[in-house]
């Protein structure tokens, strides 16, 4: 029987596979939002106690990852008037093949690094590694600036999952600081996408290739 935490982790894996296989940016944004809401439950479930601090962090995460980020991303997608397609360098089936390979590597890595302490599901490290790998892969292989931000959020989600389950004693100040930083990062990236669109009439990051040796 899977615990709820493990269920969320499995959900993370499945949504990652969807992200690798889909061609619609809109769906990608929704998947990341979906991940975010699931992850927001982790601070509550991880330690089995509903302290006000945990509730607050959980609420702020859900609000940010589930609502504000998708809103910002959809906004910049609309403002750019682009076809809402991912346009990857690596095709969808190959991306999925990468996903399978990455999953295998993550499980192997996770088995090499058993987590100390009780109450931490052993599924955690493989899932976190897998999500991070998918995010990195997406940033490298997706052409549009919006997709790159979406995949940055995937990467961030993987890290968040790891932190939320693994850490009991991180201070409130730290958690809020991290959330604030990620928020500002997405905000600033959103502005940059708007500017790229204004300057070039497209948001293909691959044409940002003038500066080199």
């Amino acid at each position, binding site marked *: 029987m899977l615990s709820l935490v493990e269920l969320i982790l499995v959900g993370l894996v499945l949504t990652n596979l969807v992200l690798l296989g889909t061609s619609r940016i809109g769906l990608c944004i929704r998947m990341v939002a979906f991940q975010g809401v699931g992850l927001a439950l982790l601070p509550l479930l991880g330690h089995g106690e509903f302290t006000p601090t945990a509730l607050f962090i959980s609420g702020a995460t859900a609000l940010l990852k589930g609502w504000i980020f998708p809103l910002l991303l959809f906004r910049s997608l609309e403002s750019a008037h682009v076809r809402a397609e991912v346009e990857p360098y690596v095709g969808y089936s190959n991306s999925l093949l990468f996903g399978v390979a990455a999953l295998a590597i993550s499980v192997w890595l996770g088995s*090499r*690094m058993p*987590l*100390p*302490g009780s109450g*931490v599901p052993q599924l955690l490290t493989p899932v*976190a590694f897998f999500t*991070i790998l998918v995010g*990195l892969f997406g*940033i490298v292989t997706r052409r549009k*600036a919006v997709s*790159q931000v979406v995949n*940055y959020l995937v*990467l*961030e989600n*993987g*890290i968040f999952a*790891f*932190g939320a389950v*693994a*850490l*009991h*004693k*991180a*201070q409130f*100040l*730290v*958690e809020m*600081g*991290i959330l*604030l*930083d990620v928020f*500002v*990062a997405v905000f*600033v*990236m959103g502005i*940059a996408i708007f*500017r*790229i669109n204004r*300057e*070039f009439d497209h948001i293909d*990051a691959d044409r*940002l*290739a*003038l*500066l080199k*040796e």
Partner: protein
Amino acid sequence: MPVRLTILAPAAAGAAAFVIPDNRVRRRLMVVTAIAHLVFTLMAFRAPARQMFDGALQLDDPGRLFLLITSVLFAAAAFYTAGYLKREAKGQRQDMVEGRIFSNSPEARFTGCLLLFLAAMSFVCLAQNLGLLWVGVEATTLASAPLVYFHRHHRSLEATWKYLLLCSVGIALALFGTYMLALSGGGEVSLGLPALMAAGPTLNPVLLKAAFVFLLVGYGTKMGLAPMHTWLPDVYSESPSVVALLSTCLLNVSFLAILRVRQVLCAAGQADFGNTLLVFLGLTSMGWAAVFLLRQTDYKRLLAYSSVEHMGILAFGAGIGGAGMFGSLMHLLVHGVVKGAMFLLAGNILAAYMTKNVSGVRGLLRALPFSGPLWVAGLLALTGMPPFGAFVSELTILRAALSEQRYVLAGIFLLLLAMAFIGITTAGMRMAQGQPGANAPEAGKREPWSATLPPLALLLAALLLGLYYPVPLSDVMTTAARITGGF
């Protein structure tokens, strides 16, 4: 109290700068804040360390040293910026590279972000909690991204995007490393530096090593260590010179972040693992930079690759340990002031010649009677010629390597230093000598003092650091080297 103000004063001034409508008032506010920051830093330099927020923030000796160099560089930058913003043309104008039309970002945003950037860097210097340290380092990226996009043309936009994305991804990996570090204590240890160091020997060694790799890659991206440095030359060449100067502070505080993590590693008895990686990355950076320095045609990129090289020297010195760590901290101060001066001078040259090409600049010594000689002096200081400070610091690192009997490493270190010397001086001296070309400014045109005094002051500091260290400074440096080196 003054310690707190090093964060609060620039943060408040930065917020105010966004809403102050008058340009002159805003510029004055920036200069006053910079001076106040320097005063607070100097006051805090001798004051005993006090804990704030349950020990989450505290100014210890490594923090003092990094805060001092940040503050000094910002003060120079603020004087220079006040004049620079006055001289910058309003409205639309032509891009000197491609001839397209562009305009500048609003000055209020530029000044505000500069001040917030200072606040974030001070925060990093004070952070005694690895989580807050991460928050601070990420905040420096976000505050500085709008600065890179001051000249609103597509090259600076490209640089901004690369900077934002690469650094954010790099720093995200550092966050993963931070979590892993906390987890190596079984999830029962907080992210506070004292707690982690106290738990040192009980930390899980596998997780600890993995955490250090992630943290080194993450903060190393920000510090500009090769091969994660690719954003750096673009940002340095496309942003205003002042921003390039402040990026030097940014590289420094990222180095501080790496040193903080190494403190934990040392406390856990895993210092050798970290040192090997630092030496490896250090030499990689120096080698990579040396190759690109030798065939560089753009003098702002030349300085950028020289930064990569010097960050390599810092990492190498830290990895050698012992006296090498002390040499590394000396080098941090010297490189900071010299590179700061060089970027400001590069800005002056760019304003006079309107080109970033090495081949487009001739006869600096005759055309710019102040900036020209300073440029030559800066080249010598940058490449480690006596009597400037870099000579002493590089010699200290070399001697530390030799006394540890790591002869091969010392040999490679010397070889790479020589390559960088050839690359930098060949390009730099070619610019200084000869007859001024057609694009040179008219002879006898006076340079504004706000553009020449800051680099002069910084180069004098570099000279001073080659001859004499004040006692309070050398005391702090000794303790800082002991703390960060784990001895």
